[in-house]
């Protein structure tokens, strides 16, 4: 049974009612409870839990320190292309946007890596728009070995692929795939995805299963917070995570919590997720899953990012550029979204140290992991 079947069998209305009628006693029980309990996750995401942010944060911080110590992993996104065959009204890469489109050539890719590598990064996230014909499996299979020669850990955030294609990429050194559902509400999903393959909600939803079956070590889930009611979307992401962990126990999981940000020609968020809400989300997921990796992008402001450290965040990007070629040529203005934290990697690393965290550049060995 795929997660699409599970999700179709859930009554959203019942879940919504449960979320909005959670009692303080249920929140208190959830804060004290063992991990892995979906009703507890529901209670922790409820409006009632807003009154319990401090005890949630205390427990989340303790659990994070227990599992991850004082380590914060650092990674960087590398945009391969901004070509896109989808029309999505929240994204700067959307097909109808008048942008200069480009796909990095091998030389341009090498030039980008030559700027990134000396900053200390050993973990990279390859990002592209979704353009199956021009930036598809052939291109990925070509560039992956080039990237793997420079970075121990290589993740990808591109269009969903078939299991066979993921298998090809695993052979070439792919370690992780980030694939965000954007929203778990099919109606809202339909409204924001107006053209292209991304309109296929079900294919996207079942992708993490194919990724796991292909033997990818780490799988990242995410929703674009603000497209729909973030409490519901986060809860359903919890269901998704629970489904995947039970069936595909050899993979690690991470979540990202991107808030909808303004972009060229984009929309304003339907449901505003406040800073307080973001803290609630991070703490709720840490209490739900002590081992979950939680990553935070440069969409958030420096001061908020610094304050969120320790609550549950395990990975951060720093010094990001969100346009292809942006590390060599930072003025290109082809961004996917606006960056709020403009600090360099070195600056972020020094803030981490001053706050009692160890920036971790490398936590993976390309030379022998995957040797099997």
């Amino acid at each position, binding site marked *: 049974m795929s997660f699409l079947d599970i999700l179709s069998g859930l009554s959203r209305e019942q879940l919504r009612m449960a979320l909005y009628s959670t009692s303080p006693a249920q929140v208190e029980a959830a804060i004290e409870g063992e991990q892995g309990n979906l009703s507890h996750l529901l209670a922790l995401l409820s409006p009632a839990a807003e009154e319990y942010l401090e005890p949630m944060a205390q427990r989340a911080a303790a659990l994070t320190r227990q599992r*991850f110590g004082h380590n914060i992993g650092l990674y960087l996104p590398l945009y391969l292309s901004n070509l896109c065959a989808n029309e999505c009204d929240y994204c700067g890469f959307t097909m109808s946007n008048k942008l200069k489109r480009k796909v990095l050539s091998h030389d341009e890719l090498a030039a980008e890596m030559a700027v990134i590598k000396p900053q200390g990064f050993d973990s990279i996230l390859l990002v592209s728009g979704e353009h199956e014909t021009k930036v598809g499996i052939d291109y990925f299979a070509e560039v992956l070995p080039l990237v793997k020669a420079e970075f121990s850990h290589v993740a990808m955030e591109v269009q969903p692929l078939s299991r066979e294609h993921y298998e090809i990429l695993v052979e070439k050194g792919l370690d992780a795939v980030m694939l965000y559902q954007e929203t778990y509400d099919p109606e809202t999903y339909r409204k924001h995805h107006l053209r292209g393959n991304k309109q296929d909600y079900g294919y996207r939803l079942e992708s993490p299963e194919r990724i796991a079956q292909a033997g990818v*070590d780490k799988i990242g889930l995410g929703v674009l917070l603000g497209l729909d009611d973030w409490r519901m979307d986060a809860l359903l992401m919890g269901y998704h995570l629970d489904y995947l962990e039970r069936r595909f126990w050899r993979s690690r999981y991470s979540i990202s919590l991107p808030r909808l940000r303004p972009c060229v020609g984009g929309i304003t968020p339907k449901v505003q997720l406040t800073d307080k809400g973001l803290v609630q989300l991070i703490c709720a997921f840490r209490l739900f899953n002590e081992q979950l990796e939680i990553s935070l992008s440069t969409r958030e402001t420096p001061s908020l990012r610094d304050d969120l450290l320790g609550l549950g965040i395990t990975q951060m990007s720093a010094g990001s550029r969100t346009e292809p070629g942006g590390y060599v040529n930072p003025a290109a203005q082809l961004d996917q979204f606006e960056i709020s934290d403009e600090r360099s990697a070195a600056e972020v690393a020094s803030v981490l140290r001053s706050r009692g965290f160890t920036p*971790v550049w*490398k936590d*993976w060995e390309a*030379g*022998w992991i995957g040797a099997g």
Partner: protein
Amino acid sequence: MLTIGDSRFSSRLFTGTGKFASSDQMLAALAASGSQLVTLAMKRLDLKAGFDDILAPIRQSGVKLLPNTSGARNAKEAIFAAELAREVLGTSWIKLEIHPDPKYLMPDPIETFNAAKVLCERGFTVLPYVHADPVLCRNLESVGCAAVMPLGSPIGSNRGLETAAFLKIIIEQAKVPVVVDAGIGSPSQAMAAMEMGASAVLVNTAIAASRDPVKMALCFADAVATGRKAYEAGLAQVHQRAIGTSPQQALTAFLSE
């Protein structure tokens, strides 16, 4: 003195190097612990860049390195990691860790046994991290492991000696040192392991994630030393009931009739 392979240790507290707030803090805690054997993850070392925040300071401190294969998901990867460690760090000591389950990091007994066998044949001093499984420990001993490292409870959980019943059997049977690894969360738990007869304990999270790692390292050092002394002194017999009280119905009274 504890002897493992060709080395002798006066401290029976082994420590880890992960999870500290800084390398300075790690070094200070290691010094306070008196530990002479520290484990470090091969996957954390940046061998390409030629700089790293872990290895250089530990090397300077002069303690013996126990590289581990953390991150390996099967025997093949672990063997690769061990060979890499021998080549790069110049030590044939290896803490064999194979966990295909990234959530609870449960050691895989089958892959661990297979890897241990190969590594022992290739001349490594192998210390395998395993469940508290007495039969597995005997099998690992028979293929030449220098010690066995059964877990007290899930790694990083600080839950103590939840496997105590099985640890006792392992300690009773083992002909190689038994190092209780994983799950020890407080000095009293470390002391309990030592009183039980463990040869040593390995502690990381409980020190690194404490509010004052240096102070906590000192506490563990004391606890381990005391626990060992108590074991050597021989704990007095524990009785379930008072001896000498007259039972309600004497079962052996007929002998004197």
